[in-house]
């Protein structure tokens, strides 16, 4: 106890010194932190100064007078005219005209397959009666009407896989009529005469006209058809992209694919 008492003053001094040292260390630590912070701040200011310098340089190099000079010499842009301004979304929408969409009851599809040549030829020949009949008949057979009634089409396609009737003129008819004519069409198909009119070659059509009704030209047709299968596919492809009658075109293309296979 006495020893402790006698050393008390020493302890006091030591603890005071320790506390003071601790405080000093803390303040030293704070000071060094502060110095680091200042260093960062200084760096920030220096960076800002550099940014400012660079901005000034860029601004000077890209000054408006310089841009104007470039514009006058090279770009030649001019102020937009009054017509180039739009008031709002409606005016903008007015600028873009949509593709004219086909009316649903658009009457016609003309997938003209065999060339227009055959027709003048018979007319020139002068055999009006026979030629006329042949031409009429072939025309009637060639004719096919547009219709969105797919089921009817499909059945037709199934029934006559060979026939490639190409309607030549626009025919305005109701779908009722279409069905009636389709039934008419199916008849010649069975006789396989249809191929003759379908064939593109003008000479053949002429022959058909000479021989009378299309039924007689069937032997000549057999060979020609094979040749004419290729040309036939072309108009079909055209019809495929024809926006006016997407459905019949599709039906046609399917049919031709099958046809060519079966014909061979």
């Amino acid at each position: 106890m006495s020893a402790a008492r006698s050393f008390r003053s020493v302890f006091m001094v030591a603890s005071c010194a320790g506390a003071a040292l601790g405080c000093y260390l803390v303040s030293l630590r704070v000071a060094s932190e502060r110095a680091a912070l200042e260093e960062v701040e200084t760096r920030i200011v220096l960076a800002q100064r550099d940014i400012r310098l660079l901005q000034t340089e860029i601004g000077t190099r890209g000054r408006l007078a310089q841009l104007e000079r470039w514009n006058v010499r090279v770009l030649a842009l001019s102020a937009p005219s009054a017509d180039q301004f739009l008031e709002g979304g409606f005016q903008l929408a007015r600028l873009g005209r949509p593709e004219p969409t086909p009316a649903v009851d658009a009457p016609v599809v003309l997938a003209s397959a065999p060339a227009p040549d055959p027709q003048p030829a018979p007319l020139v020949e002068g055999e009006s009666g026979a030629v006329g009949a042949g031409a009429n008949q072939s025309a009637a057979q060639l004719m096919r009407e547009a219709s969105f009634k797919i089921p009817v089409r499909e059945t037709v396609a199934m029934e006559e896989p060979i026939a490639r009737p190409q309607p030549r003129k626009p025919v305005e008819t109701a779908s009722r009529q279409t069905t009636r004519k389709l039934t008419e069409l199916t008849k010649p198909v069975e006789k396989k005469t249809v191929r003759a009119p379908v064939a593109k070659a003008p000479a053949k059509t002429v022959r058909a006209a000479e021989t009378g009704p299309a039924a007689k030209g069937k032997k000549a047709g057999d060979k020609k058809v094979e040749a004419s299968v290729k040309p036939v596919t072309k108009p079909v492809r055209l019809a495929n992209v024809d926006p006016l009658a997407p459905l019949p075109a599709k039906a046609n293309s399917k049919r031709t694919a099958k046809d060519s296979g079966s014909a061979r």
Partner: protein
Amino acid sequence: MNAPTPALVASRPERLRLVGQRRQILTMMHQRLMFGLLVYGGVIAIIVLRILYLAAFGDHAGAKRGLTALVPERGDIIDRDGQPLARTIDAWTIGLWPQKVIGDKLNLARKLAQLMPEKDEAAYFAMLKSGKSFFYLRRRAAPNVVEAVNALGEPGIALEREPDRLYPQTSLAAHVIGFTDTDGKGNAGMERAMNDRLADPAMRGQPLQLSISSRVQQALEHELLDAMTKHSAVGGAGVILDIHTGEILAMTSLPQLNPNAAGQGSPEARFNRATLGVYEMGSTFKPFTVAMAMDAGIIKSFGKMYPCPGELHVFGRTINDTHPYNRACSVAEIMKESSNIGSAQIADQIGGKRQREFLDKMGFLNAVPFELRERGRPLLPGNNWGPLETMTVGFGHSLAVSPLHLASGYATLFNGGVYRPPTLLKIGKGHAAGKGHRVFSEQTSYKMRSLLRLVVTEGTGKKADAPGYRVGGKTGSAEKYYNRSLLVTTFAGVFPMDEPRYAMVMMLDEPKGTAETFGFRTAAWNVGPAFGRAVSRIAPMLGVSPNKNREPDMSLVLPFVHEDAKH
């Protein structure tokens, strides 16, 4: 211890006195000692406290000062969108201390002449030999030159950085911004007008924001410069005002001046034509005359007729028209074909006193009260302001004002009739719009729209039209008073006319006729087309959307324009 022993016997009075004195001396010495102790103790305490304070709160030895914030030597100037128009940067300066040069002077002079060829070898050698203490070799030196000079390794050459004023947009709005001298003191323009504000250490951290829009300024300057070169004019001026606030959106004076090297510009280029120059503005004054007459109740409709003979003889003078009517003509026709004769008669009816009052209210009799120091005082007829002068002032002669006056007058006429002082500082939080006062009635202001639109759609200002932007305005071609063969052509206009927002004045000084204009050199042929082009460039920037279906109420004027009057 030193206390005197008490005398047992009564001592002699002198002895007693001596004892008393001693005591007194002793106490005094004590006091002095104590005082000295306190003083030393106090000093030590102060030192200790200071040391403690510094230890606790003071900076350490390595602390850096002065870089905690980026405050330029002189405040920046920016435009209304924040684009810098003037900045202070650190530039290199190359100096020479001839007495500190240690190398071969002739050799050094030779090398300096190679690097900085603005002086020859002999001149550098003379400098080195002169015995003077210091020369500036180059201020604002390019870094590569500084590098090369530094590579000479001569201790007598001083390379220093000093703050330097840079105008990044070079000649753009040079007359508005002004320039500084080598000591960085404002010498012209806003640099001079706002010198205290820009140099104030408390304020210079904040940039000074002008009402100028640099894109609009550029468009105006370009179109005006284009017209000036095309028509070989000696100068030009242009002003665009926001008519509701009085803010100057663009103001230019040509020929151009590069404020980075203002000293190299000619006095002609340093002259601010837009504010300091005063010119007779010619026919552009006529709308004021008509408006005055409407406000005074003289003209109630644009259909009021005046006799318009081929010549008008008054007070020994003859007034002519470029498009004589030789018949009675309506006010609408007078304005459409810019008839001096008609305007003179209207002015005569107004009378000199009323005319002066109106002009005074519009600020045409005094310098424009705004920031720049370069403001011209109008030239007035003064004491000679008689009936003849009243008539000539009525069509813009005998009274010379600056283009800024004119723009301000048009702003007054079309913002509803309220005069507002123009300003070059952006209207906003720190700067409110100037206090206005009414000059014309609102109705007059409204009716005038269609009249000035008529001038552009049907009359002399056709070439100034910018399709869709509803420009209304008036041409003006005045002869110079010292040489009647020289013209000052002006176009003052407002757009969009159905709801006016901006007033613009363009002026060409002494334009010449060209083949393209068939030799004509009146405003309709030179400054008019430039005005139209400028509007079609500037209006979209200012948010005026073009619309070909909108017009002011033209039914006020069209009935009074006779078909046969068309030329």
